[in-house]
């Protein structure tokens, strides 16, 4: 298990290769990369700055992974979230899940992303032509996270 909160960029290929290294029991790796877009809520976004709550962030991410491990048989999980100022096209977050079979890997990867979106203490501030603005939480993210408690 690997959890990192960092300003630096990460590399998907490097992270997934590190999970696989020397193992022959992994049948499936599902991964997700979230990227900064040039457009949000109808206006251009020149850059964004990610603030977080040091200490709680790592704790919240570890809790998400513990819950995923309790729900599914997983072989390894990596979560990396960037902080600081990012430009459109920059990767923000990476979640990679290794398992024996694809069903577990896909479900756990999406579960971790859905919960991260509503539980992990990160906040985005966008730079737009109309000035800076804090991104508002989305009802659709709450709905996505709620799916996992209904099942």
């Amino acid at each position, binding site marked *: 298990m690997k959890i990192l909160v960092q300003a630096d960029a990460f590399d998907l290929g490097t992270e997934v290769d590190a999970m696989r290294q020397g193992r022959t029991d992994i049948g499936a790796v599902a991964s997700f990369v*979230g990227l900064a877009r040039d457009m949000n809520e109808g206006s251009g976004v020149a850059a964004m700055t*990610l*603030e*977080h*709550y040091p*200490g*709680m962030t790592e*704790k*919240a991410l570890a809790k998400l992974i513990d819950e995923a491990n309790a729900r599914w048989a997983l072989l390894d999980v990596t979560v990396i*979230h960037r902080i600081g100022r990012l430009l459109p096209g920059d990767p*923000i*977050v990476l979640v990679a899940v290794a398992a024996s079979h694809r069903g577990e890997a896909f479900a756990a990867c999406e579960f971790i*992303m859905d919960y*991260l*979106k*509503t*539980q*992990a*203490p*990160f*906040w*985005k*501030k966008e730079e737009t032509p109309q000035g800076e603005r*804090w*991104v*508002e*939480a989305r009802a659709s993210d709450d709905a996505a996270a709620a799916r996992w408690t209904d099942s």
Partner: protein
Amino acid sequence: MTLRVLYFARLRERFGLAEESLAFAGATAADLVAALQARGGVWAEELAAGRAFRVAVNQDIVALDAALPDHAEVAIFPPVTGG
């Protein structure tokens, strides 16, 4: 009791404060929120009933009826928007 209270993101900017140490006579997160609202101005506005904010105690998000232990680290922040 003494609390360390942290503010993040939009609330940190609105309150003009990232952190404070607070002598507090109440028992729960709701009591703390009421005490902060009583400051008036942006405090009353941002922490009014119906406004969306979250409270974490010792780095776990809690409901407003959660008890606050002495020397707790309490954080108040907007709904999160990472990922």
